[in-house]
């Protein structure tokens, strides 16, 4: 406890550094996955290979990937190394999510959008993409948690962030430092996740309206049971 109180600025800096390393891969994996997911969904023959590659990517252990990529980039400890690696992991999750999300858009709705005069691009941005929103959001929640937790691996390489609290805590046998690292990582993940959920609510008020009747019904069933 004492250790924590004495090192509050250090904990703050580590959390901030951790956040700074987490945000770019989260944003990048979303931005890059959307066109790839669209491609996988639009051109059937591409779908299988693309999703398989994405899945395999996630199966590669993170430390070796960081080492290989770091050697390639010429610096193991660079932010770029961890950002690129974690973007790849994020994409491994999000490409599939995006393809699934786009495939789940009601064919009736898509056809009627075409029927009333949306061109292909107009329809994508005004109809398919927003309607894929809830599934995309679900995918991004996983990416957020996974990314925040994976940034800690950077600690092994000496990259700033909450991961450094584990390695440093282990070396110097400071239990409080290790615990603080774990707790702050979890809290950071939960906070980002909650922000994402709030963002989803703000951007997709319709999705709650759509879900509401069934929830009400469920409650009615429970009340009468």
């Amino acid at each position, binding site marked *: 406890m004492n250790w924590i109180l004495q090192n509050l600025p250090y904990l703050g800096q580590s959390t901030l550094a951790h956040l700074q390393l987490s945000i770019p891969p989260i944003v990048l994996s979303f931005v890059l996955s959307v066109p790839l997911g669209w491609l996988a969904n639009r051109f059937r023959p591409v779908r299988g290979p693309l999703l398989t590659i994405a899945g395999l990517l996630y199966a590669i252990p993170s430390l070796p990937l960081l080492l290989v990529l770091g050697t390639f980039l010429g610096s193991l400890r660079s932010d770029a190394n961890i950002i690129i690696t974690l973007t790849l992991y994020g994409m491994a999750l999000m490409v599939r999510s995006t393809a699934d999300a786009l495939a789940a858009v*009601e064919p*009736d*709705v898509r*056809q*009627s*959008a*075409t*029927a*009333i*005069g*949306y*061109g292909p691009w*107009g329809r994508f941005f005004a*109809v398919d993409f*927003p*309607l894929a*929103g809830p599934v995309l959001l679900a995918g991004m929640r996983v990416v957020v948690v996974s990314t925040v937790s994976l940034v800690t691996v950077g600690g092994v390489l000496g990259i700033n962030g909450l991961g450094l609290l584990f390695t440093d805590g282990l070396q110097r046998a400071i239990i409080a430092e290790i615990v603080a690292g774990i707790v702050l990582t979890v809290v950071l993940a939960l906070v980002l996740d909650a922000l994402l959920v709030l963002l989803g609510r703000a951007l*997709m008020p*319709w*999705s709650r*309206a*759509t879900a*509401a*009747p069934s929830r009400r019904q469920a409650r009615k069933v429970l009340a009468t049971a």
Partner: protein
Amino acid sequence: MIEFRSVTKQYPDGTRAVEDFSLVIPSRKTTVFVGSSGCGKTTILRMINRMVDPTSGSIQIDGDDIGAIEPVGLRRSIGYVMQNSGLLPHRKVVDNIATVPLLKGVKKKDAREQALKLMDTVGLDRAFADRYPSQLSGGQQQRVGVARGLAVDPNILLMDEPFGAVDPLVRSDLQEELIRLQRDLDKTVVFVTHDIDEAFYLGDQVVILQKGGHIAQVGTPSEILSNPADDFVANFVGANRGKRALHIEETATGSILVDDEGAPPAR
């Protein structure tokens, strides 16, 4: 006037959905295509707004070959209403209705004002304007669908089994509403159904289809009832009759179409 000239549609998988289909659809009348599932009704309807392009043959609207018209623009000028409304679930009712005017560049405020007026036209309370489609009943959603179809004041309104998924009472409400609308608005309505009663009730011209879009008979309801072209038509017209079994009755003033309670169907 919409004219089909020897139109054939073969889908890429080899299905010949429509074969050598020729028909004239008169302006400002309701033409109803009726036939069992899979006979090619939707395919025929979608060739009118180029959602589907024919494999051979041509389609003309008022003498212009639609093959030469850019599809997106063509679709924006033709109303389209389908089963399960096809409304955009992420847009409020009023925005759904205003979709096409907005696509065509009408100002937001004007489009909204016009959408509210259309809600009156189709008998929807303006209080529903700011709800999402999922918060309406099936019948109300179909009314929104009709309002959206009318939003650009199109000459042509295509309707693909628009009342197929609502319960019978609501369906007859909607049918009556459509007849009232048609009296006021004078559109060229092309309506698809598998319900022969609905076809006779709504259609000025009824087209009975067989598999492959083959026309079994074309005519007014009374022509078809009084003079079915063959056994297929006689069966189709006689079979699956609902409560309103229509038939022809000779009266002093000529023959009229009546239901089994002896009343002419409301027109």
